[in-house]
């Protein structure tokens, strides 16, 4: 009898933590996992295999705050002729014919109250991989760094960049 009560309590206790674990799993799956993109665009193919430079598509990364995701017209410069028989490229052509922009899911972002500029960092000689990892091995973009404040500060400390609050919080 006593042991039945104990087992019941233990079952509820572990069940409680199992539910919390499930909660973490669902949260991660819905918000933190690499999002599925409307078109299965692969950096592994375009960067790893074909060896296109990042700036071919992310054209503003060296001169502006935002790196910018390429407009559809950029893809079509090549894909009017390349791989037109492939399923994903047909989808791409569909967007092009409908004159719709592709609704890419954002992967990397910082909150509103943080100011971040690509230009300054690229000019300082940093590589994209410092913050985005090795895209050449990613068939789908995933967030490999946290972009938490500690991440920015660690590097600013190591590289002797400004750590004044107003540098990043305007």
């Amino acid at each position, binding site marked *: 009898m*006593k*042991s039945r009560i*104990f*087992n019941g309590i*233990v*079952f509820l*206790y*572990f069940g409680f*933590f*199992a539910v*919390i*674990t*499930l909660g*973490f*799993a669902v949260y*991660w*799956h819905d918000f*933190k*996992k690499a999002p599925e993109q409307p078109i299965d665009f692969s950096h592994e193919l375009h960067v*790893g295999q*074909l*060896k*296109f*430079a990042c700036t*071919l598509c992310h054209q503003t990364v060296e001169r502006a705050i935002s790196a910018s995701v390429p407009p559809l017209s950029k893809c079509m*410069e*090549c894909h009017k*002729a*390349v791989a037109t028989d492939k399923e994903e490229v047909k989808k791409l052509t569909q967007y092009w014919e409908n004159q719709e922009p592709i609704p890419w899911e954002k992967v990397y972002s910082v909150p509103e109250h943080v100011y971040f500029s690509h230009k300054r960092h690229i000019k300082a000689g940093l590589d994209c991989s410092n913050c985005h*990892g*090795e895209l*050449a*091995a*990613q068939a789908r973009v*995933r*967030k*490999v*760094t*946290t972009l938490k404040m*500690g*991440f920015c500060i*660690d*590097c600013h*400390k*190591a590289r002797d960049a400004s750590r004044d609050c107003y540098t990043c919080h305007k």
Partner: protein
Amino acid sequence: MGFLENVALSISAEHITLLKAIITLMLVIHIPYVSIVMGGVFFSSVFSALDKRESNPIHLRFSRELIELVTSKRSAPALLGILPLFTLILAFSQLYQGSGFKIANYLLIVALLAVAGFVLLYFYKGSFSNRDRLFPLHILLGLGAVLAFFGGYIILASTTSLIFFPEKWPFVNTPFPLFIYENEIPRHGMFLFFTFALTGAAILYFYFSWPERKKDLDPDYANFVKKFAAILALVSVLLQPIFICWNLLTFPDAASSETVFAVWGVTLFMLMIISMFLYSSLNSANQRFSGVVFILFLATFIVMTVNDQIAAGNANFEREKLLAKKAEEIHQQILAAREGRQEAATQVDGTEVFNRICVACHTFDTRIVGPPYMSVLPKYVDNEDALIEFIMNPAKIDPDYPPMPNQGVKKAEATAVAEYLMEELAKRQ
């Protein structure tokens, strides 16, 4: 150094899998053993001190027997302690070579502390014969062993937790990778209470189920040992889920996957079964479950270790993929060099190179990514060297096109493909 770097870069996919298997195996051998030793020396010291404060033959006997238990196999410290630790250092340092993660340095400190721990442990055991005369020394030796072990394995827990967090690696510049980020604290808790839980389970097993156990236990003493070990294990197991969830709360997103969460679920289930068995051991005279509990503990530890390896693989996915790719390229180059040592460039098949690399962007007649060959090749007639040079080192030429990415072709391949292109051009003109 150049040679070493090449070794670092040529870790193939199979090699990576093998290293991970070795790491898992060594952790599975080493950690449970060290856990029992640590728990043993810790509680032996505690009970020795308790007996000093208030004389109690049961405490003294238990203190002495605990230390005998953990030192009963002469070869164990070498075979289960030091050898796996140094194997781990070698395997980890290969797997993380060139990554900026100074894991070998951290583990070397762990190994030094572990060696110190074992030495102090044996001195402590020896000091039992002079315990009454030299009690301060005796207890200091026990305490020293405890501190050395716990110090070492707290560093190990921090280090293995840092594996999930590559973004911190370049910025750890202390020899002790302690308190770098918040995930370490639940990991310390998991490790500490796993140690206590396994110690409890091991005591139950070695006193009540082991074929070589002492069979002359008087009921009072047996009851004391049973109560102590079962309660220790039970409380520690019940604390474990708190640390598991805390760990998940602080776990890096890039190391997670559905599998990792599912395996934590399995771990929770196993811990629940263990605690039910432990409770029934506590309340019955019969200890038939203590063997099962001990095996279940080891199984749970294996599951947790494998889970950590999966998570480490997730966190380091891109790095490992690129390493394997690079190794494959080096392997192909070596094969090609071996085959083509006598026969020179002419042996490379230009058509094959064209179809493997160039077709993605070029045809002869139409623009795709690059210009149609018919419009650009004529200027290279009688100037094949310039064409070969361009193929190996493409420069920006026509503002109407994106620059041609360097395809990394070898001299022999470039020569062969250039020859093929010129032949085709002549045919088509």
